[in-house]
């Protein structure tokens, strides 16, 4: 292994990479701010105003990203949709984490009947298609994005719980957990202080990618009348609405797609950054 100088390089490269990430994030934020300022202060489009004669226009100074199939300004909708989309998907993701992680830790750590019961509950949730959950909820509580979030949480929390459980299962075999137990630490403390740091890595990875999946799920469920009601701008719905123009006007799909990609990218960067912070060993031998 000529690893000795190489390792130095990866360290240096690493810190550089962090600053690159910071620059990318900052540039992105600047871009968004500039675009919003221009759109909202100068152009002042109404995001729901349709204009059948001005539909599917290409990019122009008036419509920097053109107009959609109903003649609405794409950039305005994209920018306004960001808040909606992000807010709700983050809410759903956060809630799924908040439910899933404790469940997983408790089940994996306590074992026995707690675990068994939990596994069965989880299995039960897994057997339900998300559409059913969503439809039932919307039927019982009324359509609306809040219920959609609820439906997503109901479907999603299980995967986190399961993932956490599996890590906890193997981790709790180790001596340091035994010691913690013999120290008489309360289970709650062992779970939060000793086990939690171990699951962060995998959970962050899964969560940062799930953000994209959740946005897409919102879009597919808004198809059956859940989620944001038209004409509310929402990325998933925009993506779905542009399906017919997939060949004639692919950019209609690309814009919200790119928006989602960049959000997932940022989430991923954040996830990796956090993961590195939890990863005390940092690097592996190549």
């Amino acid at each position, binding site marked *: 292994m000529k690893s000795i100088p190489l390792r130095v390089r990866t360290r240096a490269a690493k810190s550089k990479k962090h600053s690159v990430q910071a620059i990318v994030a900052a540039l992105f934020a600047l871009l968004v701010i500039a675009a919003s300022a221009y759109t909202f202060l100068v152009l002042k489009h109404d995001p*729901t*105003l*349709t204009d*059948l*004669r001005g*539909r599917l226009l290409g990019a122009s100074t008036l419509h920097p990203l053109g107009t959609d*199939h*109903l003649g609405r300004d794409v950039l305005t909708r994209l920018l306004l949709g960001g808040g909606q989309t992000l807010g709700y998907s983050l809410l759903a993701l956060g809630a799924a984490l908040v439910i899933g992680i404790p469940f997983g830790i408790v089940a994996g750590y306590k074992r026995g009947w707690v675990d068994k019961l939990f596994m069965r509950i989880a299995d039960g949730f897994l057997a339900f298609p998300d559409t059913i959950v969503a*439809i039932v909820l*919307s039927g019982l509580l009324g*359509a609306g994005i809040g219920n959609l979030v609820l439906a997503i949480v109901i479907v999603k929390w299980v995967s986190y719980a399961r993932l956490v459980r599996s890590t906890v299962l193997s981790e709790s075999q180790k001596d340091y957990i035994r010691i913690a137990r013999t120290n008489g630490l309360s289970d709650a403390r062992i779970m939060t202080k000793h086990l939690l740091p171990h699951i962060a890595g995998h959970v962050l990875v899964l969560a940062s990618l799930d953000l994209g999946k959740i946005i897409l799920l919102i879009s597919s469920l*808004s*198809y*059956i*009348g859940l989620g944001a*009601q*038209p*004409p509310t701008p929402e990325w998933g719905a925009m993506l779905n609405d542009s*399906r*017919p*123009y*997939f*060949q*004639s*006007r692919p950019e209609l799909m690309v814009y919200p797609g790119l928006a989602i990609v960049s959000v997932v990218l940022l989430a991923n960067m954040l996830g990796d950054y956090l993961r590195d912070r939890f990863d005390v060993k940092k690097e592996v031998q190549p």
Partner: protein
Amino acid sequence: AQSTDSDAATTAKNVHFLYNFATSSLDPHVDSSYVPLRAGITETLVRLDEENLTVAPWLAESWESEDGQHWMIDLRDDVTFQNGKPMTGDAVKASLERALSESVAIQNALKIDTIEADGDKLSITTTQPFPEFASELVNPNTSIIDVSEPDIVNKPIGTGPFSLTSFTPGSKLEVSRYDGYWDGASPLDTVTFSFNEDANARSLALKSGQVDIVYRPEVESLESLEAIDGMVVESASTFRVHQLTMNMERESIKDLNVRKALDALIDRQGIVDTILLGHAEPAIGPFLPSLPFAPKYDNAATESGSEAAVKHLEAAGYKLENGVMAKNGKPLKLTLLTYSARADLPLIAQVFQSDAKQIGIDVEIRQIDTPEEYMASNRDWDIATYSNLTAPRGDAGYYLNATYHPTGALNFSGSEDPELTAIIDKLNLTVAPEKRAELAEQAANYVHDNVLNSFVLHPSTIVAYNGKKVKNWVSSLSEYYMITNKLDVM
């Protein structure tokens, strides 16, 4: 990529047809996709003559009734089922009886009391005078099949030009020529009838040459399809209408002037030209203008546009203040239902909402899952986009009864207009076609004058096919008849 039929002369002659709806059952009496009839496996006693929009003989040579209650039907005597058995009166009777027992809706539609078979003759008595009886026999769910066959769901045996060779539920069926077909065997050897519910994928399948005829390709892809040498795109108006259903139980909607205003707000031509790219016809009333009983609406030089709408609203006592349309300080707020199963409807809803916003009407769109269900059980909405078949079998009775009669299953407006109900009741008892047409027209005019519902457009069916290969394709108005014995390849 072109498919492999360059040497069509030596290989079997096959046409691959791609339909936009998938079915997992082929039971001709139950399945509402009508695939057995559409694929040329089964036939009905009578068919719709799409040129004259009259009922024409098919498996039945002739039919008659004096009083509209006792019917004599004379069957063709040269017809055999695809298993070789002759189509006798008894076989037809058995088939009809199965249809009746399998489906309440068919019972309703046919209102048959008794059937008697005598050789090639059937005598049928309906439970009440029922002039439309013959036209109801157009319904594909009354297809004549050999009910003695064991597996009707997966392998129905009918009398059509093609017999089923294989069926993959939800995916496709393969049919092959029935040589003993009474109207002359098809020149084709086989037909593949497959399903794909994604419009883009259908267009691409045609482009790739994997299929020859595509039903309802993606409208947006037509331009690129037409650019391909030899590709033919046909569009035909249908008996369908996209309408704005008014909930007559709502206070604001009860006001005729409000309804008129909403009607005036709809930018029909704009929607037809842009959203449907011209593959539709702006609608005035429920019936396609070419139908004999469609009113001419000569007096219907009604102005439309937001100014007209504002005028109507002012007549109703509304005033536009600070950009809000309000009456006695109460702003006009409407809930508009829409659903995505028909992709145009949410778009129409959004256009309507935007136009309404311009004159200060606050329209909230609510997207729902199953419209029939929702509209029937929830009354918290004002207007709804909905799509209706208005004369599927060339007769107005079905639509008028279902939509405007107080007992109608699709009467989501909750309309209980005694005058209109009287017209419909009268229509139900009238036998003579001209008289019926007159009554239907009267009903349609009534609906129009009172804006009981507002009609947006009649969408067209688009079919695209490879004109270099396919011969004799006819786009059917009723969307019943697709694979026929005339269809051929070059």
